């Protein structure tokens, strides 16, 4: 019970899917307040589904999601760019100001102070001169930075990022990693779906590994030590390989605590 109280997010044996198709089954995990966690796993392992469930977009068919009541209305979600209409006629500054939606809703207008914050967020991600550009004319990396700027202005306590480095060059990745590390330093809880094992090992202290269900979670270096994450094999070889989903190879996910090697 004590650990639940210090958790920003606690997943209690949740099963989530789309209609009758189950995407993740019986996942038990928790994310401590202020933690920086990577969610890894092969394609189709349910990483994005997990994030959508935490964001409240999908409802679990079984189990419960507990979010610290103090943080419940302070969740920011950055979806995969492939789910976003990039041809939508919208200037960059307006796209960033969408981050104020929770504050302004339909009733209030974006005031001068909010606009200054939006411009500052754009400067933080290095897009200070592109406020008036249409989002459709941006490169993939620039567009991802706009989404990060939108997340910055949301000023959320829990930040959910779904594959934020897909189709992004090294320079942009480095810049965005710094934004994430800043969030972590500020005590925000960051949960990030990732494919890049190098980035996971270097920057994310905690990891959750999924393959339809939770295969392992804990300190990232433990995940590598136990070969739940590995540079020798790609994730598809590790977890799918035409076989059934493997049994957990580290401690079971429904057990608490870390494996201190």
């Amino acid at each position, binding site marked *: 019970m004590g650990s639940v109280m210090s958790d920003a997010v606690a997943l209690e044996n949740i099963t989530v899917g789309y209609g009758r198709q189950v995407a993740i089954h019986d996942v038990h995990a928790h994310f401590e307040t202020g933690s920086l966690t990577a969610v890894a796993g092969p394609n189709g392992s349910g990483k994005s589904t997990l994030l*959508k469930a935490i964001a409240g*977009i999908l409802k679990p068919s079984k189990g419960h999601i507990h979010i610290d009541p103090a943080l419940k209305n302070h969740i920011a979600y950055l979806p995969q760019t492939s*789910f976003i209409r990039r041809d*939508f*006629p919208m200037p960059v500054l307006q796209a960033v100001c*969408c981050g104020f*939606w929770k504050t*302004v809703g*339909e009733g209030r207008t974006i005031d001068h102070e909010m606009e200054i914050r939006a411009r500052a967020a754009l400067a933080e991600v290095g897009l200070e001169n592109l406020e008036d550009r*249409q989002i459709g004319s941006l490169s993939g990396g620039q567009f991802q930075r706009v989404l990060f700027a939108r997340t910055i202005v949301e000023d959320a306590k829990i930040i959910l990022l779904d594959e934020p480095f897909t189709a992004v060059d090294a320079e942009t990745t480095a810049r965005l990693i710094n934004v994430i590390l800043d969030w972590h330093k500020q005590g925000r809880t960051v949960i990030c779906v990732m494919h890049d094992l190098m980035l996971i090992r270097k920057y994310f202290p905690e990891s959750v590994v999924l393959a339809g269900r939770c295969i392992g979670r804990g300190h990232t270096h433990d995940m590598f030590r136990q070969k739940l994450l590995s540079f020798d094999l790609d994730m598809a070889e590790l977890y799918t390989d035409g076989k059934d989903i493997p049994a957990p190879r580290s401690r079971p996910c429904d057990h608490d605590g870390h494996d201190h090697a």
Partner: protein
Amino acid sequence: MTLYEILFQPFADYSFMRRALCACIILAISGAPLGVFLNLRRMALVGDAMSHAILPGVSLAFMIWGLSVWHMTGAALSIGIVVAFFAFYLTRVTQLKEDASFTLVYLLSLASGVIMISRSGSGVDLLHILFGNILAINNDALFLAAGTAAATVLILSQTFRGLVIECFDPDFLQASSRRASWIGSVFFVLVVVNLVASFQILGTLMALGLMLLPAITTRFWTQSLDASFLLGILIAVTSGFAGLLISYHHEIPAGPAVVVVTGILCLISVLFGRHGSVRTYLTR
């Protein structure tokens, strides 16, 4: 023939022309902004299907009460919404994709509606319902369209920001607001209500004309959302004005003439527009 006689005299001389122009302006004010959103949500085909899905309701009311505006409106609205949600339900629980389920529902609606009208009315009644009668609209139809336009503009202004975010990034909106699912439903009901209001004027087969074609046209000229709304309204009003004049001077059906003018403006834009047209494709 002077320019005044060509452009203005028909409206000065005949009240039915003035009423028809008034109807076009009303439809443009509410329909064009809805069309812009419909187009941006890639729901043009769904909109087309919906314009036909109201036909069984119209036909049922016609069989019972005849050509009564309010009865036909009520029946079209209720059955149209039921049909729409049935199509969405099919998409959700079966293997049918949205385009296939809406095609099934709209063809069934169209065919059954035509059969019902044919069994209880004349060919003229059928033509009236399918293609409207913009030159013979009564006060009830005009008031209905005006009330619908006023309500639409009001509701759009109150849901505008949510609609924009929902079009742009629906997952973000859902994660940010529990009201998100309502915004899509409100928008859809607005589309159906506007189609019902405009079918009295342009008929069930053409009701989408002044809603969607101006919206498609604007995409070739502007990348600004605000400008799209204004340009869409302007194109719809211009098409109404020009279509009615062509219909008057050349004695052709007015509703189809209005839609043909809108379609020609759209085709010109497809060929020569500033953004994404054939011209920009050939010159890049």
